[in-house]
């Protein structure tokens, strides 16, 4: 056996092998979207007192989203004649990039992180803002007025809610005194399960995050009944599956993972007694899944906001509240609590 261990060690010393392992982490994201998508179908069905998918794969329709994916791959690739082909085709790459890049800095455990960047949380928020460009490009390149209206609504919403999102994260950075994700988790050690001095930041962050991933009650930009999924009306087949579906779910998972890291103690266990190194990724996954579940629950509980209500809520309620919260955290910082 020592030979094998030695071989493993030499392999792990090679920077290219490490790079390969790190890149393969991103490949986990696609199956993860299938799982989260399936769970969402089931959760929404049970909330509405239905069964949801029951047949594909046999056991409780577990293969439903997989079958959907295969169906999307087989579909014809349609581009409208008046569309701007280059811009139209570039969109899925941009939306996917904006959604997936944030995973580089998410710590599943203190060592289980692709790269613990010094500017961690700031990087995550910066790359997730790339997706907006994709949406605007999609809406314009489709040469369809409903798409354009959808894209403008979505861009307006993403800009409005980005501000409270960043300000809520800034309050956490103030507490931790660092932007590195691992440092942020470690700074929550005195609080374990819930970082209570950041209670208000948590609420602001969750509301803004729900708006950022355009999920109900903040789904005006894709309102199916009015503007037929907004910017992505003209997208079909693989482009639709990747540019909209997969990217949306990856962004959804990324924001839940970010919220876990910032407010729920990330990979820390709920009570100090359970702090055992190999179990840490499990705590992280449990917390992230709980947030995902609560957001699905919210989706089927509250009706959609109107466009003007949505903008007013962001600029007149959330932004002032998050500024007040920064003062509050600053005052707490003067006390021995944090």
């Amino acid at each position, binding site marked *: 056996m020592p030979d094998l261990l030695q071989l493993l060690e030499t392999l792990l010393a090679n920077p290219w092998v490490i790079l390969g392992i790190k890149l393969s982490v991103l490949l986990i994201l696609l199956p993860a979207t299938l799982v989260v998508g399936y769970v969402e179908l089931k959760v929404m069905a049970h909330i509405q007192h239905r069964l949801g998918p029951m047949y594909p794969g046999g056991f409780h329709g577990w293969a439903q989203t997989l079958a959907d994916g295969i169906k999307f791959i087989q579909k014809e690739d349609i581009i409208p004649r*008046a569309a701007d082909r280059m811009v139209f085709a570039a969109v899925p790459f941009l939306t996917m990039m904006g959604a997936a890049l944030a995973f580089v800095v998410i710590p599943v455990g203190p060592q289980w992180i692709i790269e613990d*960047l010094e500017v961690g949380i*700031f990087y995550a928020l*910066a790359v997730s803002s790339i997706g907006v460009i994709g949406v605007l*490009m999609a809406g314009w390149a489709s040469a369809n007025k409903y798409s*354009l209206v959808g894209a403008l609504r979505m*861009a307006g919403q993403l*800009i409005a809610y980005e501000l409270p999102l960043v300000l809520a994260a800034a309050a956490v950075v103030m507490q931790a005194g660092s932007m590195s994700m691992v440092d942020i988790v470690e700074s929550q050690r005195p609080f374990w399960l819930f970082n209570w001095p950041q209670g208000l930041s948590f609420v602001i962050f969750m509301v803004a995050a729900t708006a950022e991933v355009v999920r109900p009650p903040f789904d005006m930009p894709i309102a199916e009944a009015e503007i037929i999924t907004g910017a992505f009306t003209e997208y079909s087949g693989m482009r639709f599956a990747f540019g909209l579906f997969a990217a949306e779910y990856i962004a959804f998972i990324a924001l839940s993972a970010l919220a876990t890291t910032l407010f729920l103690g990330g990979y820390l266990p709920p009570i100090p007694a359970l702090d055992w190194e190999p179990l840490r990724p499990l705590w992280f996954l449990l917390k992230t899944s709980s947030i995902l579940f609560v957001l699905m629950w919210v989706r089927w509980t509250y009706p959609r906001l109107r466009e003007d209500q949505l903008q007013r809520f962001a600029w007149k309620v959330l932004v002032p509240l998050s500024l007040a919260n920064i003062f509050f955290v600053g005052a707490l910082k003067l006390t021995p609590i944090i």
Partner: protein
Amino acid sequence: MHQYVFVVIGVLMAIAAVRLVTTKNVVHGALYLLMVLAGAAAIFILLLAEFVGWVQVLLYIGAVVVLLLFGLMLTRAPIGRTALDNQSRALAALVAGAIFAMTSMVLVRAFDGQMIDFSQTLTVRTLGGVLFTKYVLPFEVVSVLLLAALVGAVVLAKRDE
């Protein structure tokens, strides 16, 4: 290694910059601008100014270009493939040339001959410390300038009502 990456990014940025001024489609122009700004962010990261690079992404790509596209789409960008052109080329060339000359002169006078030490990275802590001690006055002046611009924009927008 740094130099090769720099050359690749630089060539891409130059191509995008030329296309930005030659394209007849305003939205394409905005997207080429996006490529140039992304290249600038990449160069900042290459020169170890990681924080500045991501600020470039968050502010210029995530906000400035988005608002530019937003404004274009709300007002004048025709959807689909339509061309627009502007005839005041000489004036534009003059203004662009003047800005180029001025910024190059300022940059050369400020940093001529200085080398970047690649052995030590610039931490956010150092950057913040320097920004709020040594350069606090320019920092505050820029803040006031931005605030004035903001108030001005609100006043201009309100006058129409």
